[in-house]
């Protein structure tokens, strides 16, 4: 083997690997926007399956309240604990309430809730649609002249985008309550002052922008889960792969889009 070949072979392999990864990324993005486009296209077309919408809204919204509530309350409690230790260094303990409420409504509640729902629902959507794909149930829908995106994806994405804002509202409330409980009962803060300071610097715009973020995150996590499931190949192993990557990709896209949404909304 010539010296030139010895040098070129690993370089070619590296470039092939890089090119392959780039093509995979472009394919993923293409699938995401293809499903998103078709979801928006079919959302306002008949028949409207109200029963399926309701079923998905209960699944995404009502059934997620315990896990979202629990995590939000603890996030609020940890926030209060951390802020108190920091703020007491320059005697600003009374601002703990304001920081907790602002950071929860503007940032933490939407992101934490979206990540929890990605784990709970994004993965379930990928597994459900992936199983339907490998067992030919999606082909059966096509064969029955039913557009699978219309029947399967639209109610799931719609339910997710609609139910994330109420979940974030619950998350806001329970997070603030968690912070109040820790500050008042553990750190000796004045309950009335804490309550006043919670709302003193809180603007309605802070809450609304958090809810808008939540709706966008809901859309992203459901479209990611559905597109991963929809394009599953390779049997049980393929379903497992789709499920894992739905959570990973969904979480990454949520965190990336969070930056841009924050830049636009605030």
């Amino acid at each position, binding site marked *: 083997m010539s010296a030139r070949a010895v040098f070129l072979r690993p370089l070619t392999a590296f470039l092939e690997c890089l090119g392959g990864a780039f093509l995979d990324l472009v394919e993923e993005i293409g699938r995401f926007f293809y499903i998103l486009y078709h979801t928006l296209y079919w959302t306002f077309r008949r028949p409207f399956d109200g029963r399926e919408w309701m079923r998905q809204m209960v699944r995404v919204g009502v059934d997620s309240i315990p896990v979202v509530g629990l995590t939000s309350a603890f996030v609020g409690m940890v926030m209060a604990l951390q802020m108190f230790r920091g703020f007491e260094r320059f005697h600003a303990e009374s601002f703990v309430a304001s920081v907790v409420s602002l950071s929860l409504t503007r940032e933490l509640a939407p992101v934490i809730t979206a990540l929890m729902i990605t784990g709970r629902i994004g993965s379930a959507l990928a597994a459900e649609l992936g199983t*339907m794909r490998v*067992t030919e*149930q999606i*082909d*059966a829908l*096509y*064969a*029955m*002249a039913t557009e699978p995106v219309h029947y399967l994806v639209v109610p799931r994405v719609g339910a997710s985008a609609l139910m994330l804002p109420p979940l974030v509202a619950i998350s806001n409330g329970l997070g603030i309550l968690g912070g109040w409980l820790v500050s008042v009962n553990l750190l000796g803060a004045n309950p009335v002052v804490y309550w006043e300071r919670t709302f003193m610097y809180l603007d309605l715009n802070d809450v609304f922008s958090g809810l808008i973020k939540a709706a966008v995150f809901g859309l992203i996590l459901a479209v990611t889960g559905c597109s991963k499931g929809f394009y599953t190949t390779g049997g049980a192993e393929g379903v497992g792969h789709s499920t894992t990557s739905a959570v990973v990709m969904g979480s990454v896209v949520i965190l990336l889009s969070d930056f841009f949404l924050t830049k636009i909304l605030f």
Partner: protein
Amino acid sequence: MNEHTTRSGAAGHGSPKITVVDLWKSFKGKEVLCGVNLEVHAGESFVIVGGSGAGKSVLLKHLIGLIHPDRGHIIVDGEDLATAPPAVCLALRRKFGMSFQEGALFDSMNVFENIAFPLRRHTKMSEAEIQARVAACLDLVDLDGVATKATNELSGGMRRRVGFARAIALQPEILLFDEPNTGLDPMTSAVIDSVIIGMRDKLDVTLVTITHDMRSAFRIADRIAMLRGGQILAVAPPEEFRALPDAYIRKFLAGEPFEEDVA
């Protein structure tokens, strides 16, 4: 089609319901269909046989538009599925009923809901009419007392028959069967064949079945086509098919390995 091709089996049947012209399809550079030509006549039971990996399922999925060809035409009642706009394709699919290999039943629904699904989706039937239609479909496939069962409670043969019932719910003009006997014991397989023959006799439909089970093919076919290497090797009625001199077909019928394939 080669010199073995014959039209005599279609005697008494109508004009072409489905015409496939020079159909080509490849996956990741591997040619699966290499210029398939065939005609399915209205009202006949057309069976496509071939070995594993011959491209039977791919061909069947082309017929209903589940797979888009690289080249060629699939003409159903004068409309080309390969070039028709999506809305026309969707309307053409209403003419088809398809039964999948393992039934492809929706596991989130019970048997009744599975069969009622296309009726609820595409008709304005009342609940009473839907119940009557589902009962009629189940009766046609010789299934009784399973309407409220979950799909995971059904045996392999029952799943196929529920799949048949769902496929005929909308009274399609063309019924497609993807390997209806695969994985079934000979007795259940015979039951499935008799259900298919019953549907052919009682319904005004054109049947297209793919299978590698020759016993089943001879039972249900008006004409049999052999698919090999992505091309139609021969088309003939069952009796003529048995007598075809082609070496590959003779080995296939005898269930013996073909030298070229082994090599």
